[in-house]
């Protein structure tokens, strides 16, 4: 395994994206460019990228900061990612970012944008309302205008104009990233023993902090080396992990799940980065970007899809990826995840697919309870 040379750079970048952002600082120093932090799940990274701004995903501090300042401003019954991101905003970890952007992932994140603004008066803090009524004929035009609004704000920030050619170029770069990430997804689905979850995770995560060209370059080499690799498969159950789309579970927890006898062949962690597939670059690229969102976005808990039946969606999904079981891994106090659990679970009951529901916090450091539950779960499937 150690032969894969880029492994450590992925891991380093991922580690850096929790609280330090040294990579970003260095990039800024070298290029003189600006950086923009964005909150999960969906964000049109192409917009800042085409203006020379580095977009960086903010996925929580993974327990790396004390939450004392956040506690003063937020209630205790909200998820940890919002509190740790806010704490970082207050205590300066996010000073490296020239702007912060949120979107409509949930009520908590939405209000987080406002209180961040109030406390960081001078910073550019924005909010994108991504349309949920995507079968309205007005949705794409609306989003197109919304992207124009945000672009105008970003243009003001960098003092540069958005150029169509540049945007098309950015879209192509991100298309490539999405393609490679999907390739890796498929590889792991078919041969999960080729790489540990931790490794897989740091590769995906570093995609949201590294400059995209550099990342694509590394990932390309990685994927081809990995595809050629051979490793021994173990007798484990194949599980899909559902619900961790925003706050990220501690890596240790995922390790506990795998060690208890599972291969995680699907997870929703950092899903936003691989959502839309290939975006058209001919014609008006901004419009295409808006259209891609309205038409292609993957069904996901925090996204409403008027035309997709979630019940048949989950049934087909677990069938297609040949899962033996589903683990609902939901962040503590994350309501959206808890509601979809209800919809999905009734279908899984019907198709007799075993499932297990677990809760976590990004800062959790004890997993005994989870270990017991997952071991029992694996035992009940393995020794069927």
């Amino acid at each position, binding site marked *: 395994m150690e032969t894969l040379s880029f492994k450590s750079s992925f891991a380093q970048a991922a580690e850096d994206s929790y609280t330090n952002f040294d990579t970003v600082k260095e990039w800024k120093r070298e290029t003189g460019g600006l950086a923009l932090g964005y909150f999960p799940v969906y964000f049109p990274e192409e917009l800042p990228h085409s203006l020379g701004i580095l977009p960086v995903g903010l996925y929580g501090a993974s*327990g790396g900061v*004390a*939450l*004392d*300042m*956040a*506690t*003063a401003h937020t*209630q*205790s*019954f909200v998820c940890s990612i919002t509190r740790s991101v806010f704490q970082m905003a207050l205590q300066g970890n996010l000073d490296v970012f020239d702007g912060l952007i949120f979107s409509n992932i949930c009520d908590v994140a939405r209000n987080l944008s406002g209180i961040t603004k109030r406390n960081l008066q001078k910073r550019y803090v924005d909010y994108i309302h991504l349309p949920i009524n995507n079968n309205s004929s007005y949705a794409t035009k609306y989003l197109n205008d919304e992207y124009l609004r945000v672009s105008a704000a970003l243009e003001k920030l960098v003092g540069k104009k958005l150029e169509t050619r540049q945007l098309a170029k950015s879209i192509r770069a991100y298309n490539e990233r999405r393609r490679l990430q999907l390739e890796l997804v498929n590889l792991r689905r078919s041969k999960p023993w080729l790489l540990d979850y931790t490794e897989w995770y740091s590769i995906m995560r570093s995609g949201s902090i590294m400059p995209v060209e550099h990342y694509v370059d590394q990932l390309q080499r990685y994927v081809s080396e990995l595809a050629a690799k051979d490793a021994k498969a173990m007798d484990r159950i194949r599980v899909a992990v559902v619900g961790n789309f925003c706050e990220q579970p501690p890596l240790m927890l995922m390790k506990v799940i795998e060690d208890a006898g599972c291969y995680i062949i699907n997870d929703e962690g950092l899903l936003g980065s691989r959502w839309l597939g290939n975006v058209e670059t001919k014609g008006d690229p901004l419009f295409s970007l808006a259209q891609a969102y309205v038409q292609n976005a993957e069904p996901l808990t925090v996204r409403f899809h008027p035309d997709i039946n979630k019940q048949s969606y989950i049934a087909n999904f677990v069938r297609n990826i040949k899962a033996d079981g589903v683990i609902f891994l939901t962040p503590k106090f994350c309501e959206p995840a808890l509601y979809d659990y209800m919809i999905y679970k009734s279908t899984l009951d019907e198709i007799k697919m075993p499932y297990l529901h677990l809760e976590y*916090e990004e*800062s*959790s*450091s*004890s*997993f*005994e*309870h989870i270990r017991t539950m997952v071991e029992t779960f694996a035992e009940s499937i393995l020794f069927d």
Partner: protein
Amino acid sequence: MTKYFAGVDAGSTYTKACLLDENSKLVTTTSDMTGVNIVAATKKVYQAALSKAGVREDEVSYIVGTGYGRYKITFGNTQVTEISCHARGAHYLFPNTRTVLDMGGQDTKAIRVNARGEVVDFCMNDKCAAGTGRFIEGSARALNLGLSEVGEISLKSTKPVKISATCAVFAEMETQEQLAYGNKLEDILYGVHSSIASRSIGLLRRVGIEPELTFTGGVSLNPGMVRCLQEQLGIKLNTSPLTMFCGAIGAAEFALEKTLAVAI
């Protein structure tokens, strides 16, 4: 004849009483477990204070009750919440107090006070972030340790364990799981104290931390807690063996003031 003023703090764990004389001098303090019979406990602790000071009942002009059981102090003249009383009591012991952290058995309060010891702003723990003396007691009992031991033991920690859960219920589970991982007792206990400290600091930030900060309530007797708070805050706290009595002292001060007000 000297006149005396009494404060009785009927807390969830301990009942405390104190007497002040008319010059506002602290004459005596007493305390005992509250137990299940509050009325009896308050009477007992109050009587103990009288006999310890050699004061007759009729020499006491005014009695103020405070604490959760304040309405059960049948012999008291009036009641004041322990928030106002702790503020006054802290100001009595440390006149430069501007912020008070009171950690008792049932709840934790952060209080900002003015130069006269009057409450300007206060916050109490939300249930989901509750870090109180009760939780330390819980861990102590789970580990078969005495209350006064846990703080001492935690001081020996060299490799503190992180207890990250926010709510006391989860934190307690986590404590036990850390044992299952084979971590050392002192390191876990340090983690327990540290996690409660950080939760109380969140509370303190809500009112704003202005020096001097006085730490009151029963938990202020716990050296482990004092250490964690000082380390995390980076400032020194006022504490003394009397800070546990701040509620009662403040109540007695109110008793004195009330009498003065009536006299004028």
